[in-house]
């Protein structure tokens, strides 16, 4: 059986599955039950000056029968006194010495405030700290969370203040509410971060009630933007992890967060450069026990792949993730419809006709039976037909490698080069 243990910047954990700082890590009762269920680590619900919450707090984007495809919240950090949290952290660590307890922190951007909370939390014995520079609502209006996480200088400075006194590894949790997350990731590294984690939630409004015209969620008829997470944000998070992993100046481990719901998602984040993962929405939806399938699934996958340790996955797909200008313009992909599998629903024809390159013909065979066929010479290989097709195996996308690969960057170079050369050759 493959080894699932990880070591993230010195924080050891029996497996790569951690609970993200959120309602499931609000109390010792919950974190202890999570560890019993099999979670390798937990990032405690963010500590700071205890806040006051509103009700209601959550809303969900259900899509085509899938509940919680996206999840929105306007909850703030912990509303419980520091002493209570610290006592429960101490008790939990005592009961589970081999599990990772990381404590999330958020205070105002002042050196003495960071020093105080870091020292008090580390005094009870924790494995690491996570600085929450990400919550996009409420706390941000008070200059904390994403408000300070969007300013690279503040990320660097606050990380530096935490590191001035921290004895345990410091993870900086980044906000996705920024154009280029590598800028704040680099600032965290400059400030001395031992690791970075991403993503926190994305500014969002779930919807508007068409009867009352109230926003969803709302508190007594008034709404405010929340933070979006769950399966819908996974592609955004995965890209951000990849962007950081391929940046040579961001040379610290990454804890991947955002839409992770199963072992496959976790493996994808690790392949894109994460050393471990954190999960929130999937646990809020299905409970702690999902970790059993995550552990079994990942373990079986590694065995099937003959990979001895989960650490061997880390970053393996990063060299394959490049810029658009380095992709081969001459590589061809074409669609081919398998008529013995196709159910003639015509979705591919409609999609191609209305939204792509009009290259799927509706034909009739000698018996008058309708069938669909791709005019391969006009197919641009966009994938739309296979994406809309409801039947697995009905459309294959065939790869046709090019004889002479040519990227956009190479094309630009050759065109510019020819201009220079021709001027010399023709003697102008």
């Amino acid at each position, binding site marked *: 059986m493959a080894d699932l243990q990880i070591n993230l910047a010195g924080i050891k954990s029996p497996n790569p599955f951690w609970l993200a700082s959120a309602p499931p890590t609000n109390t010792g009762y919950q974190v202890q039950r999570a560890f019993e269920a099999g979670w390798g680590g937990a990032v405690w619900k963010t500590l700071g000056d205890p806040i006051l919450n509103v009700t209601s707090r959550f809303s969900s984007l259900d899509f085509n029968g899938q509940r919680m495809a996206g999840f929105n919240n306007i909850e703030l950090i912990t509303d419980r006194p520091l002493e209570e949290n610290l006592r429960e952290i101490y008790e939990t660590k005592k009961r589970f010495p081999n599990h990772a307890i990381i404590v999330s922190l958020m205070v105002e951007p002042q050196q003495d405030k960071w020093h105080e909370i870091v020292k008090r939390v580390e005094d009870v014995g924790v494995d690491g700290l996570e600085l929450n520079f990400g919550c996009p609502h409420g706390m941000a209006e008070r200059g904390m969370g994403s408000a300070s996480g969007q300013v690279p200088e503040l990320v660097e400075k606050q990380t530096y203040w935490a590191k001035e006194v921290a004895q345990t590894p410091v993870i900086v949790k980044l906000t996705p509410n920024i154009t280029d997350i590598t800028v704040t990731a680099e600032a965290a590294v400059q400030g001395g971060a031992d690791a970075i984690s991403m993503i926190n939630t994305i500014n969002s409004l779930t919807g508007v009630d068409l009867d009352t015209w109230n926003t969803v969620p709302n508190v007594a008829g008034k709404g405010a933007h929340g933070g979006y997470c769950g399966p819908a944000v996974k592609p955004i998070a995965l890209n951000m992890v990849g962007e950081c992993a391929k940046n040579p100046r961001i040379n610290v481990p990454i804890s991947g967060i955002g839409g992770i719901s199963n072992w496959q998602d976790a493996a994808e984040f690790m392949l894109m450069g994460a050393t471990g993962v954190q999960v929130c929405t999937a646990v809020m939806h299905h409970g702690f026990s999902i970790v059993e399938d995550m552990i079994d699934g990942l373990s079986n996958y590694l065995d099937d792949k003959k990979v001895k340790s989960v650490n061997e996955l880390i970053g393996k797909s990063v060299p394959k993730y490049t810029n658009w200008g380095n992709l081969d313009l001459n590589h061809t992909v074409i669609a081919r419809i398998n008529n013995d599998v196709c159910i003639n629903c015509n979705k591919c024809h409609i999609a191609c006709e209305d939204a792509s390159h009009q290259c799927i013909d509706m034909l009739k065979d000698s018996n008058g039976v309708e069938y669909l066929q791709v005019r391969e*010479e006009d197919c641009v290989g966009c994938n739309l037909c296979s994406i809309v097709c409801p039947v697995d195996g009905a459309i294959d996308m065939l790869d046709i490698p090019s004889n002479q690969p*040519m990227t956009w960057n190479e*094309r630009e170079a050759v*065109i510019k080069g020819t201009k220079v050369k021709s001027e010399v050759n023709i003697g102008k």
Partner: protein
Amino acid sequence: MSTHNEFIAERDKIDFLIDQGYRITAVTENLSGDLVEFQQVDEAGVLGEKKETTSLLIMNANARKYFSTLMMEQQQ
């Protein structure tokens, strides 16, 4: 005309010039596509001032890939 037929038509024009001993000497990208300038090479394969020049406006996307692939091959 289908996009593929447009490609074939433009590719054939490029191939015709190449067969006649022309080489691509400059490309100007514009809103219509690429203006590709050709000049004939002499027997030694060298561009000279007295040789014929001509140009093609290549508009089809695949044809624009095609001539630039030829240019890469020319350079290799």
